[in-house]
């Protein structure tokens, strides 16, 4: 007669260990097992968070060892929230976020819809489309910088080919009006494949019998698209928006390489601005307050969004 897994585990346990833990309750053993994880979580997540919140109320500077650290109450928060430059970076981030999400969802879904159709070379096209996302953002930023060069870059020449505009007459990353769009174009080029893959997973999860039933009921293709495809893909699409939204809220490397936050500070996103405050100006207390504000903003927005996502899933 074969023994149960629990019995086998008990037999395999050395006598001494069994004797030592014999007096501990199941709950105690459970704590014993999860305590290393909890300790790590506290050490590398919770403690830094609490420490950051504490520092945000001080004038601490990490590069001034030995300087007296003063408690300055809400001064850092007041300065951040009343600083028009910070609001400009928030605005730049919102513009970047909305622009990239709009185009990535639109193009990503369209590509997924096309790729989902059976045609010759389907796999090859899928591989080609996902290539940009496999590159390093820093590399992408650098080579698009060259592509955007008005005198030698390919981008302006392509625009010239279609519009006839002189390539030297404008500069994508040096012009206040064009630079925000320049970073949106590059991020869209790089990350649309990611949205496409998620949408593709959604499209392929739709059972064929739904379309067959709709066809039997004489529903038009357009009607099938709005009443079957979109509702079934929507949770996937929302998930893609969540991932891309979080990623782009903390966007740093690609934009730094491409525009450095310029011209002026027109493409200086919050993460770039925060890095400058924390690790170039070394205003640690101020930067901590800034990080807390961003954390609360992202956490709040993400919570609302996840609730909406769950509601969509429940439908």
């Amino acid at each position, binding site marked *: 007669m074969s023994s149960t897994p629990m019995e086998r585990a008990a037999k395999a346990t050395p006598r001494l260990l069994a004797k030592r833990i014999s007096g501990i309750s199941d709950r105690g053993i459970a704590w014993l097992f999860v305590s290393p994880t909890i300790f790590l979580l506290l050490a590398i997540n919770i403690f830094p968070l609490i420490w950051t919140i504490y520092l945000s109320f001080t*004038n601490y500077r*990490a*590069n*001034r*060892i030995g300087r007296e650290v003063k408690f300055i109450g809400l001064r850092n928060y007041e300065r951040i929230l009343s600083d028009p*430059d910070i609001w400009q970076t928030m605005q730049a981030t919102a513009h970047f976020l909305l622009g990239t999400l709009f185009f990535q969802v639109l193009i990503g879904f369209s590509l997924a819809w096309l790729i989902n159709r059976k045609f010759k070379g389907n796999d090859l096209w899928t591989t080609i489309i996902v290539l940009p996302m496999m590159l390093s953002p820093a590399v992408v930023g650098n080579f698009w910088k060259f592509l*955007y*060069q*008005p*005198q030698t*870059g390919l981008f302006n020449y392509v625009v010239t080919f279609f519009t006839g505009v002189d390539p*030297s*007459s*404008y*500069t994508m*990353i*040096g*012009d*206040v009006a064009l630079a925000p769009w320049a970073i949106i174009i590059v991020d869209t080029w790089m990350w649309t494949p990611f949205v496409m893959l998620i949408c593709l997973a959604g499209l392929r999860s739709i059972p064929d019998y739904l379309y067959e039933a709709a066809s039997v009921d004489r529903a038009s293709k357009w009607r099938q698209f709005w009443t079957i495809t979109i509702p079934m893909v929507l949770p996937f699409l929302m998930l893609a928006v969540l991932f891309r939204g979080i990623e782009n809220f903390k966007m740093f490397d690609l934009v*730094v390489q491409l*525009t*450095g*936050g*310029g*011209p*002026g*500070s*027109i493409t200086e996103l919050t993460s770039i601005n925060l890095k*400058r405050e924390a*690790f*170039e*100006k*070394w*205003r640690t207390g101020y930067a901590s307050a800034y990080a807390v504000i961003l954390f609360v903003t992202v956490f709040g927005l993400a919570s609302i969004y996840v609730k909406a996502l769950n509601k969509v899933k429940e439908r």
Partner: protein
Amino acid sequence: MKLKNLIALTAIALTGASSSAAVAEDLTLCWASWDPANALVELSKDYESKSGNTMHFEFVPWPNFADRMLNELNSGGKLCDLLIGDSQWIGGAAENGQYIKLNDFFKKEGISMDDFIPATVVGYAEWPKNTPNYWALPAYADVVGWTYRKDWFSRPELQKEFKTKHGYALGVPSNLAQLKDIAQFFQNRKIDGKTVYGAAIYTERGSEGITMGVTNALYNYGFEYENPKKPYDMPGFVNSAKAVKGLEFYKELYDTSTPPGSSDWYMSEDIDAYKSGQVALQMNFAFVWPGMNADPNVGGDRTGYFANPPGPGGHFAQLGGQGISVVANTEHKDAALAYIKWFAQPEIQKRWTAMGGASALRAVVEDPAFPTKQPYNQAFLDSMAIVKDFWAEPSYADLLLAMQDRVHKYVIAGQGTAQEALDGLLKDWIETFEDEGKL
């Protein structure tokens, strides 16, 4: 017998101790990654052969140099034993105990700061400024100056056209207004069938570029960092009407005389633009001059050099260059000091300049043969005589980034007015000095 054994053992032990003290050490020297650094690698082979120590080098590209090295200093890292750091870092490094003070060492070794160009001593070695407290040995003398296409300037048809238009000869500009005239004259001009532009100037935003460029206009229009009689008193000096004119000048130069796409250019981009024949004038630190002179496309007689021209408010040029310091965290202090002692020797300084470095030793630059040794040497001497530097305060990074931001917004992005930009800069600087407890 026992006593003899004891003496013998002691002798062996002492010999062992002395030989271990003479054990070769590994020294790491940190600097920016550029041509002079390669020359220093070659030069340092002499130190290696004489001392038995091994030199290692950590060179960081210019755009990341300050970021990387200041992080290294601030985090108490042990990567560098010797650091050739930017002149503006001296205040922070001295006050935060990151560099070793060199006064006693200089005195002991007979190294006199009187032997070096005074401006480089103040700029690269002293903190507080104009006091005999030395934290570095002037290592590389550098200053912003200009190169121009002598071959284009000398074309009769262009000379004639320029004279007709401006009423004076096309040549080395005698003031900033003339420099702008010349740059505008070449903008979008066809030369040998190719469209060329006026000037490559500093516009970079991320590190220090546009500040190192715009100050060459600001200083010469009358901008001052503070009241010369009252330190940290800045209103009316930083944002004076003269300073506003200087900033407007730089913006006009950028708007009317630079190649398209030059909104984020610093040293390397300016070099590329000039060497590829895109521009008639190039603003850059003097360290690029040997490379220009040797370049097969634009070198030799095709290029000329001149100091930053004067403006209505004075005649200055932005100081560049660095001093060599011993990092306080080093575990090889004696070997690092020995390197500085070796480097300070007149013979080594002479070789340093000959190999592509730029000595700040007066014996080298005041040698009667020096001005004519290279076509750019006279321009270098003229430039070094008019240098002025940015703040070297411990809060240098705050002050610099504020200026980068305010100036770039106005000059490149065209946001607001010059007055608003300088008023904003004044506000930022006052806030920084208030945080520092200096106001």
